[in-house]
């Protein structure tokens, strides 16, 4: 069985599983929820964005720069497929 290597990395799995349960979230929320560092999150974010699994939007909230992340439809499908593969592997 071929598990999606892009999702299988623990940090990216944590990012995607948290983004999966919300509509969108800012980077601070992801940092607080996953316990990753800024550098770590940033590098994984880039990889996931390049694969079009997530969409990253830079915006301003109360005049402060904010990074908003949202899982794309492609990302959701890939994540669901990954979960299914894992389930089958465990069973």
């Amino acid at each position, binding site marked *: 069985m071929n598990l999606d290597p892009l999702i299988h990395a*623990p940090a990216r799995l944590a990012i995607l*599983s948290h983004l999966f*349960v*919300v509509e969108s979230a*800012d980077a*601070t929320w992801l940092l607080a*929820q996953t316990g990753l560092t800024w550098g770590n999150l940033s590098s994984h974010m880039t990889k996931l964005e390049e694969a079009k699994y997530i969409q990253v939007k830079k915006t301003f909230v109360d005049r402060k720069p904010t990074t908003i992340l949202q899982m794309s439809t492609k990302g959701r499908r890939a994540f669901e497929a990954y979960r299914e593969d894992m389930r089958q592997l465990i069973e």
Partner: protein
Amino acid sequence: MNDPLNLDSIEENAYRKSNLDDGIFDILIGFCLLLWAVSLHFDYGALGGIWFAVLFPTVAPIRKKLMLQRVGSAQPTPERQSKETKKRSTLIFTLAGTFLLGVAAFFLFAAKDGLVGDLAESMRGLGSSILAVPLVLISIMIAITYKLPRAFFYAFFVVASFSLVRFAETSDHWSQIHIAILLSAIAPIVTGTLLLRKYLHDHPVLLP
């Protein structure tokens, strides 16, 4: 880190972390009770409801001000939003139902003395303690609906406060009611403050 494949648990933990674990809600409830007690002391008991109505909308801005740079924010899914709306509606309907039942009971038993005089007498005997019932009910409802065990402790504290005042009082039950409510406010204020302190310590400002 949560189990990355248990999405229900991730969603629940994320929701709790953003809405229930910081103690702000507890402090607010405590302050509402405190202000209600003060209003009662000055014979403006009806202001109790106004304090709740005025202070509750402040939760979101206070939380945003204190927490945005620490834990960020997330937009919940429409499913989650509808789940929360259902929970809130259940809570409000139960409270409204309890209130209406209370009013009905009052008119049925207390107002019609001749009909069921003994029951009316025993209800009067309960005096101010009867007010503990909705407070306890609200706490228990919150504990069950939001899976928040500390709300059971608040319910217990309300019972303890009203019992204490009832056993200590010498004259009219109603003249001491503000003390019972004041004591009831201590538990959520102290617990909320401790939770908030821990939360702020555990979640430093993350924005670079």
